């Protein structure tokens, strides 16, 4: 099978792949005294600011709201940087691509893996915050452990990485031919931030009083079919417990349970979509990679 041959060929270049990832990490914090510590400093700063904002400035009636935001925001940053960086991964290396043979798919995939490492560091920061939260719950006499789904976290990271890698393969190949792609993707991602549950909860969409049935159900299913929304919601639900939160305008507000995650069918459907996007991206990239150098 053609695809397997391509994979076997790429595997011969493992050493180069490691070096590409290494180089990506070295270059990011070139000439900075703290170096890779910046990968930690960034999420720590983000966590502290969000904590301060939602604890002291706009206290919402959701306990530890900043934790819920961060649990979706860090994976969102992984989406954002992973896709944007990878978009240019081939076009930036054209000087090399024109001269030396190596499996070209290593370029977007190495960028993806470099971003995965950054993301794992930010997950560690989130982990510290969660340790604090769960420790606090024992201290105040309402002992809680993280949800059992936390053991599915690796599956979630893998499926997100497959999705990012697949999209990276598509757009890095397209960007060689049409430079408009990277701008288009940047705009799309910017808007997407509001279209996925990061600063709000999926249940607020599901039970909104602003939209009437059946439009409300349609809207909810659109969220469940969006792999970005499913992945971000799942991070949150695997790390943090559901809780009661008020919904609607002050006069007629109702209590709803937020952070219940997505139905399992939506989760596994999303998993399948991520695998398919990756395989599709790999095929798409390979069908075009021999024409990269012919661009004048």
């Amino acid at each position, binding site marked *: 099978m053609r695809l397997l041959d391509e994979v076997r060929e790429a595997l*011969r270049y493992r*050493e*180069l792949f*490691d*070096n590409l990832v290494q*180089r990506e990490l*070295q*270059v990011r914090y*070139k*000439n900075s005294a703290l170096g890779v510590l910046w990968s930690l400093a960034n999420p720590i700063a983000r966590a502290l600011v969000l904590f301060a904002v939602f604890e002291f400035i706009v206290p919402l009636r959701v306990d530890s709201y900043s934790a819920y935001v961060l649990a979706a925001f860090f994976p969102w940053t992984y989406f954002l940087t992973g896709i944007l960086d990878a978009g240019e991964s081939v076009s930036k290396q054209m*000087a*090399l*691509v*024109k*001269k*030396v*043979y*190596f499996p070209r798919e290593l370029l977007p995939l190495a960028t993806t893996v470099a971003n995965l490492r950054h993301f794992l560091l930010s997950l560690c920061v989130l982990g510290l915050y969660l340790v604090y939260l769960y420790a606090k719950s024992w201290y105040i006499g309402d002992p809680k452990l993280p949800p059992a789904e936390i053991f599915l976290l690796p599956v979630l990271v893998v499926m997100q990485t497959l999705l990012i890698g697949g999209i990276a393969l598509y757009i890095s190949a397209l960007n060689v*031919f*049409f*430079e*408009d*792609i990277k701008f*288009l993707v940047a705009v799309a991602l910017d808007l997407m931030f509001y279209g996925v549950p990061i600063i709000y909860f999926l249940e607020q969409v599901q039970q909104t009083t602003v939209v009437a049935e059946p439009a409300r159900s349609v809207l909810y299913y659109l969220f469940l079919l969006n792999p970005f929304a499913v992945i971000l919601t799942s991070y949150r639900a695997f790390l943090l417990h559901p809780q009661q939160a008020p919904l609607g305008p002050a006069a007629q507000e109702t209590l709803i349970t937020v952070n219940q995650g997505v139905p399992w069918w939506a989760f596994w459907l999303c998993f399948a979509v991520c695998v398919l996007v990756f395989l599709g991206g790999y095929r798409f990239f390979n069908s075009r990679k*021999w024409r990269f*150098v*012919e661009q*004048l």
Partner: protein
Amino acid sequence: MTAAAPPNAIEVRNVSKRFHVIRHGYAGIKGKLGALFKGQKPEVTEVTGLDDVNVTIAQGETVALIGRNGSGKSTLLSLVANVMRPDAGTIAFPASADPAHPRIAPLLEVGAGFHPDLTGIQNVFFNGSILGLTRAQMAERLESIKAFADFEKPEYYDAPVRTYSSGMFVRLGFAVAVHTDPEIILVDETMAVGDEVFQEKCYARIGEFQREGRTIVLVSHDMDIVRRVATRALWLRQGRVTADGDVEDVIHAYHRSVGLPD
């Protein structure tokens, strides 16, 4: 039948390559949108890069490709380097230890493959891995690579490459390439940069490669370089091999056709 001939290093068989050039209008989304709304399709013309080229290069030969700009020299070099694929025909490397994966070292142009923000040494390791060497193999050769590049100011090895002069760039790039144990070496107009001392060193190294039986293909407009290192010359004109053989004869034919004195 005479004694079995040694296998050829490079066999180019009936190779053709065409390119699509957009004459006017835009490529990409803008072009697509233009075509959609205004009915303006970008005008694309087909340009012949190589037209049914047949070349056989024996192991240990040093072949110079000469010809005017756009005659197909670099296209042929790119096809041998496997960065492009021919539209028709085949390119094979029967003499290589692993014919499916010949060890080919292109001597990179100034800048290619070097990341400006990484140090010289970091770039050496990275470049080595592109050419198929492991970290350990590169570490073994590092001193020898440094000795070959022979910077006047050794502190530059650990300085970001963006602070380098173009000569230093080429010296380091060349030093890496010649240390990768290649079966085939591709040289594309790199040697002209670098001072005379370094150029002499490059000639010496190429001589060494020739004695070791490695195959070299070079593209150059500098006939002095061609005369000095090549054992055979190939004149390409409009994507076809017009003359092939003795260096002096081919240069002579080429110069006569373009109206240059020898």
